[in-house]
């Protein structure tokens, strides 16, 4: 039996984990600002610190190295701006060309403010070569940043090697691990990692939760000034319920990572081969093996991504064109562009992303509706006869 709808957009956001909801609701029902000194405050603070310790254990770092934020974007902004601002004598930033906008845009902005930005190229599979990083490292580099795994095409980066190269050169290294956590083994203690961003809602915690793992000896300038919470690096009232829920979700993500990866990569591979069977001209973007277990990114030449999305939505399949949207307008993907995918091919791209609640029935539904959808979409984008005046 097929479900009514197949949700295959877990990389955008995923189903809340029931245990995380429980943790949130329990904490939210109690009064108390974790910074207050009375009993209610202490109880709330205890919850925050126990959560911090749990997350630190899960990521192999120290509790004081976990800084809670409102999500991945804030964590990335804090790391990028904070680490660069802390080293005014270093004027260069190394940044991969395929970063999420949460990194890309603050880096570009710092570029506008006078920093020199070296964009790190990727190969056709979306991989940054550690040697290109190594070749550009020098003592005038304030920050090198490369995401752990790409949100669009799912390519996993050689983070350990890049981090080590940065450590050898004495350059701070930030990695956006938002997509990696729960799907890959994420170890915050890898030599050379200065900071690591994670987001709650990609792993079953509520939206509005996240953290920056920041090495204790890192010099950083705060972005948000105020009450001095989070080692004075990120001021703002502790979100005890959100933090509690985040800790539950991180624990679940890390504990179940190996099994989860095995299960969804099997579904992923099945979906990929089914798509290629239905559409032999389709191109799977990204890396064959170094790929997020839940990511399927495909270009359908001769189709428009937004048409495919609309038709699939009507047919009960929820996926994404993979690129950032403002006002619902899909932008040309900077990731595919950096990989050298032709713009005409890139336009017909879709991202299916699997998660904790994905099932065989979801895959079956895609396979069932895809032939009709592709048929229609290719007709809708065939060049029309233009009347000229």
């Amino acid at each position, binding site marked *: 039996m097929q479900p009514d709808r197949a949700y295959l957009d877990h990389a955008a956001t995923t189903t809340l984990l029931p245990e995380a909801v429980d943790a949130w609701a329990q904490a939210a029902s109690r009064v108390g600002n974790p910074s207050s000194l009375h009993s209610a405050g202490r109880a709330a603070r205890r919850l925050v610190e126990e959560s911090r310790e749990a997350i630190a254990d899960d990521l192999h770092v120290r509790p004081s190295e976990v800084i809670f934020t409102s999500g991945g974007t804030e964590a990335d902004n804090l790391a990028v701006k904070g680490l660069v601002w802390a080293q005014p004598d270093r004027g260069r930033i190394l940044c991969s060309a395929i970063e999420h906008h949460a990194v890309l845009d603050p880096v570009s902005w710092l570029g506008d403010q006078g920093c020199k930005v070296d964009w790190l190229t990727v190969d056709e599979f979306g991989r940054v070569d550690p040697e290109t990083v190594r070749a550009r490292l020098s003592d005038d580099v304030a920050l090198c940043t490369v995401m752990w795994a790409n949100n669009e095409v799912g390519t996993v980066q050689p983070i350990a090697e890049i981090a080590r190269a940065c450590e050898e050169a004495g350059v701070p290294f930030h990695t956006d691990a938002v997509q990696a956590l729960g799907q890959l083994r994420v170890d915050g203690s890898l030599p050379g990692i200065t900071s690591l961003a994670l987001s709650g809602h990609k792993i079953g915690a509520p939206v509005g939760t996240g953290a920056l793992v920041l090495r204790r000896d890192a010099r950083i300038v705060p972005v948000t000034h105020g009450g001095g919470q989070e080692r004075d690096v990120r001021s703002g009232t502790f979100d005890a319920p959100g933090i509690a829920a985040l800790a539950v979700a991180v624990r679940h993500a890390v504990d179940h990572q190996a099994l989860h990866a095995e299960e969804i990569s099997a579904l992923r591979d099945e979906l990929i081969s089914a798509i290629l069977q239905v559409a032999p001209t389709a191109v799977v973007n990204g890396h064959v093996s170094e790929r997020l277990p839940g990511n399927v990114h495909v270009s359908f030449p001769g189709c428009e991504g937004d*048409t495919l*999305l609309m*038709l699939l*939505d009507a047919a009960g399949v929820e996926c994404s064109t993979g690129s950032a949207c*403002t006002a619902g307008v*899909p932008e040309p993907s900077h990731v595919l562009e950096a990989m050298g995918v032709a713009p005409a091919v890139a336009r017909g791209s879709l991202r299916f992303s699997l998660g904790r609640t994905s099932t065989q029935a979801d895959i079956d539904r895609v396979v069932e509706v895809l032939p009709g959808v592709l048929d229609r979409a290719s007709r809708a984008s065939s060049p029309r006869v233009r*009347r000229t*005046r």
Partner: protein
Amino acid sequence: MRVIAALSGGVDSAVAAARAVDAGHEVVGVHLALSRSRSTTGTSKGCCSIADSQDARRVADVLDIPYYVWDLSEDFARDVIEDFVEAYRDGLTPNPCLRCNETIKFAAVLDRALALDYDAVCTGHYARIVPGADGSELHRAVDPTKDQSYVLSVLTQDQIAATLLPLGDSLKSQVRAEAAERGLRVADKPDSHDICFIPDGDTSGWLRERLGDQPGEIVDAATGEVLGQHTGAFAYTIGQRRGLDLREPAASGARRYVVDIDPVERRVWVGAEDLLAATVIEARDPIWCGPAPGSGTRAWVQIRAHGEAMPAQLDIDDGVTAHLDSPARGVAPGQAMAMYDGTRVVGSATIVRR
């Protein structure tokens, strides 16, 4: 019917879509992204278009219909904006709204809709589509102040047959009231007047950015005397009186108007009002909204979006020549000449230089 409702984010398209839903159609709302709203560095610009798309989304929410954005920015850049610049470069006066209807809304969008198994496109234009003996007919709107049949006069009968215009029988005031009753927050949104891709309304400044300064002479059409200089003929329109900035008044003391523009010599000809009068209008590439009329047909012609209809006799071959009963002023090459039989739109053709 399965209907694609174009939602601009304004009040008219919102009420049109609502009426299509009420009529029992299966409606999907589509906002047309006609210009790119975000630069690659991530700095927001063109916030108007983002706000409009947000408004369109909220309309779809209230109507409980699906909502998508179709990116037609490439088509729009090529078929409307480029065409607009080219026309000015050639000394013509284009109508981009009409071109957008011809190439985007009722062509690119309609083609896509039909290919996606939809039956029609619904818009908030003020004009009526009524069944006639020879198929669907396009007519003027009931509200004479809002009538948009002129900018729709480029539609063929096939396009008209696959179009819903639910507002043609209503007054604008009724549409606003209905939007408010339906809880559509766009009810009191101001009407759009300017050319959508020139949000500040400075058309000649916008053209100057693209065409650069193209200095030339302003010449008296009667005497051939050079009266002044200009920095771009594209800043002038036939019939224009203001902003000529001539040093000396005409000897007769009469007002002077732009009477012709020569893009090759970059010359702007000015002269007395009577030089603007024309009793014969030649136009090319006619598009007929139904069966083509026979040569010698009597019709009403309209030569600009908010102009009056004038009685004429049409000589039709490859093009159309209109012999007006009484002279018209300010016939601008590049504008469309729409032809009417009473309220029915017969077709249109592009006015050429004489």
